[in-house]
C-alpha cells in the first residue's frame, strides 16, 4: 500500500501535448503508471505516443476512461481553470505541477475544488510517487526504491536529495509527496501525516520543510497528538535573511515568524528528530525505527531494520 496513488491510479494528463506534459507523460508511462487519457482542447481524437487517447475536455476523458487522478502541466494563466475542470469532472485527486499561478486564482478556485470533493496537491509541486506502482508528476523514478518510509516535502530537488540518500542506503519509500512551495496549497503536511499514519505500509515519516509560514509548527503539534509512527524532520533556510523571498513564493521570513530556528525547536519539542544535514536522514530513520514503535510489536520493528 501507499498513500494517494498506487496501482489502482488511472491518470489523465492535462496539457499532454505541451513541452513539459509530453516529456513527463513519456516518463510516467515508462515508470509503469497507468496513463489512460490526455486532455488538450482542439486535439481530441488524436493519440499520444500512439497509445494514450486525447480528449478535448476533462468531462469526456473521465467519462470514457474512468480516470480517477489528474495531473496538470498547463501554463500558469490556464492552470486554475484546469484545476477546476478536473474537480468538476469528478476525479478524486488533482496534482498541479504548474509554477507561477497567481495566488488570487487559487483563493477563488479552492472552495470550488473542495465542494466537488476533490483533493488538490500543489500547485508548484513535483507531484508524488509510490515507488514500484505509480509516479504522478516529475519526481525522477530512478532515485526511489519501494519500501516503508513515507516522505512529505515542500521542496522539489531537496526532496530528491533526501530520497536519494535513503535509496542508496537501501531504505525504501512507501510514497514520496511534494506538497509545493506556494503560500496557498491544496494539501498540507497534516493531510499527508494523517494519511501516512493510517497507511499500514508506512513505518516512519520524513518531513522536509522550509522557512516561511507556520505549517511546520502546526504539523509538529499534530505529530505530538495524532502520530504514533516515528517522524524525522528537516528545515531548509537556516541561513536565509529576513524579508527576502527565497525562490519559493512561500519561503519568506516575515517579521519574527517563520524562521528555521523556530520550526526546528517546534519539531524537537514535539518529538520529531531533526536532521542537521540531508545526509543525516538515513541514520535518524534507522535510529527511530530501532526503537520499539508505539503502535507495533518489537518483532516487526527488528525485521524492518534488519
Amino acid at each position, binding site marked *: 500500500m501507499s498513500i494517494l496513488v498506487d496501482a489502482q491510479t488511472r491518470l489523465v494528463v492535462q496539457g499532454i501535448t505541451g513541452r513539459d506534459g509530453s516529456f513527463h507523460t513519456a516518463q510516467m508511462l515508462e515508470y509503469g503508471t497507468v496513463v489512460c487519457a490526455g486532455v488538450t482542447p482542439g486535439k481530441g481524437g488524436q493519440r499520444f505516443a500512439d497509445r494514450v487517447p486525447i480528449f478535448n475536455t476533462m468531462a469526456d476523458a473521465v467519462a470514457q476512461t474512468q480516470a480517477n487522478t489528474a495531473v496538470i502541466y498547463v501554463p500558469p494563466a490556464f492552470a486554475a481553470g484546469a484545476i477546476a475542470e478536473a474537480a468538476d469532472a469528478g476525479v478524486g485527486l488533482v496534482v498541479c505541477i504548474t509554477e507561477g499561478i497567481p495566488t488570487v486564482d487559487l483563493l477563488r478556485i479552492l472552495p470550488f475544488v473542495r465542494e466537488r470533493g476533490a483533493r488538490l496537491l500543489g500547485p508548484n509541486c513535483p507531484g508524488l510517487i509510490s515507488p514500484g506502482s505509480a509516479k504522478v508528476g516529475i519526481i525522477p523514478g530512478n532515485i526511489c526504491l519501494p519500501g516503508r518510509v513515507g516522505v512529505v516535502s515542500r521542496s522539489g530537488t531537496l526532496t*530528491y536529495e533526501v530520497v536519494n540518500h535513503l535509496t542508496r542506503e537501501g531504505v525504501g519509500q512507501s510514497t514520496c509527496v511534494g506538497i509545493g512551495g506556494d503560500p496557498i496549497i491544496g494539501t498540507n503536511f497534516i493531510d499527508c501525516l494523517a494519511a501516512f499514519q493510517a497507511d499500514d505500509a508506512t513505518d516512519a515519516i520524513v518531513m522536509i520543510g522550509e522557512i516561511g509560514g507556520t505549517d511546520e509548527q502546526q504539523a509538529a503539534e499534530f505529530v505530538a497528538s495524532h502520530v504514533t509512527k516515528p517522524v524525522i524532520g528537516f528545515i531548509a*533556510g537556516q541561513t536565509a535573511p529576513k524579508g527576502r523571498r527565497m525562490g519559493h*513564493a512561500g519561503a519568506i521570513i516575515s517579521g519574527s515568524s517563520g524562521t528555521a530556528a523556530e520550526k526546528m525547536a517546534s519539531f524537537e519539542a514535539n518529538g520529531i528528530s531533526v536532521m542537521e544535514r540531508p545526509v543525516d536522514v538515513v541514520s535518524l530513520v534507522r535510529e527511530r525505527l530501532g526503537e520499539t514503535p508505539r503502535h507495533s510489536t518489537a518483532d516487526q520493528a527488528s525485521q524492518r531494520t534488519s
Partner: protein
Amino acid sequence: MNLHEYQARDLFRKAGIKMPEGDVATTPSEAEAVARTLGGKVVVKAQVHAGGRGKAGGVKLAATPSEAAGHAEKILGMVIKDLVVGKVLIVPAAEITSEAYVGMILDRESQRPVLMVSASGGVDIEEVAATSPEKISRLAIDPRYGLLPHQAMALGFALYEDVGQVRAAAKIMTQLYGVFMDNGATLTEINPLVTTPTGEVLALDAKITLDDNILERRPDLATLRDETAEAPSEVEARRAGLTFIKLEGNVGCVVNGAGLAMATMDLVKYYGGEPANFLDIGGSSNPDKVVTALRIITRDPSVKAILFNIFGGITRTDDVANGIVGALEQFKVEVPIVIRLTGTNEQEAIRILEDVGMTALNGMDEAVEQVVARAKEAA
C-alpha cells in the same frame, strides 16, 4: 513586489478610497510646485522600500512651498537602509483626531484574505499584534461572496462609535478588499486611517505588496517595478529567469531548486563557511542561464570560491555542464569552482567537464566541504 506609497495611492484612489490630494516629485523645484498647488502646510515623504522612514529623517513637515523644496533637497538622494531616495511624495498635512489601522493580508492558514482592523493605528501593527493582540479584530473573507456589508459594518464599529464614520470605514474596507483581489495583492494596508476634526475618515498612507505571479498577466502593474530600488545583480538575474539574492559571505552558490539552494547555503555554514548568495537556476535546462549565473557571481569581489550543486530531474546535468564550459570560454573565472552534479544525464555531464580538464563530485557534503576549504585558502 512592493509598490511605492505614491503608486499604491494611485491604485487606492482609482478604487475610490478617500485620500488627501498630493503628488510625487523628483526635484526640489517640482516639490515646491506641488506644495504651492496644495496650499498650506505639507508633508514631504521619501518614497523608498524601507520601513522606519520617519526615524531616518525621510518624512518632514513644511509650512511653506520653499520649506518643502528645502526638505525635498535633503531627502532626495538620502540613503535609507542602503536604498537611495529618488522620489518624494508631497501631501497636505492633515489635522488628525484619531488614528486606526486597516489591512488586508493573504492568510496561509485559513487560505483566505484576512481583514485586520485596529483602533490603535499609526504604529507598527506587528508590535500591536505582539503586545496587545486583543486590540486587533480579524475576519477571514470567503472569496466566493466577498466582504459582505454587515461584516464590514461590524468591523467599522470596532473602530468608531459615530455611525457616519462606521459607514465610511466600512466602505473603505470594501474598496480595500477590491484592490486586493483585483490586482492580485498579498497585502493592502492603510496605516493610519484617520478621522479629522470635521469628522471625515481618510486614508493617510497606502501600502501594497503584489504577488509576483500576477505580473505576467498585468503588464500595467509590472511597469510599476522600481529597478533602482533593487541591487543591479538581482535585476539582471530576474531578467535571465534566475532568482538571486546577495548575501554577506564568500562562497558563491549555483543550485537548481529553491529548497536545495537553501539547504546548500545551510550546509556551507555547517562546514564553517559563509554563503555569498542564494541562486536558483530553476528547473529549466538552458545553458544560457548557467552562463548568466556565473557572470553575476564572479562579478562579486567577495566571492572566493564557487559551488555548483545540481540534482538533475527536469534539469539535465549535461546542459549545466555545457553552460559552465560555455561560460569559461566567454570570460575568465579567477576563483576555484567546485562542481557537484548527479541525476539526469550525469555520465554525459561528467564527460563534458572532463574534456576541459574539470571534475565533478557526486556527493553534496563532499562538495560543500571542498568549496569551503578552497574559499578559506583564497581568503
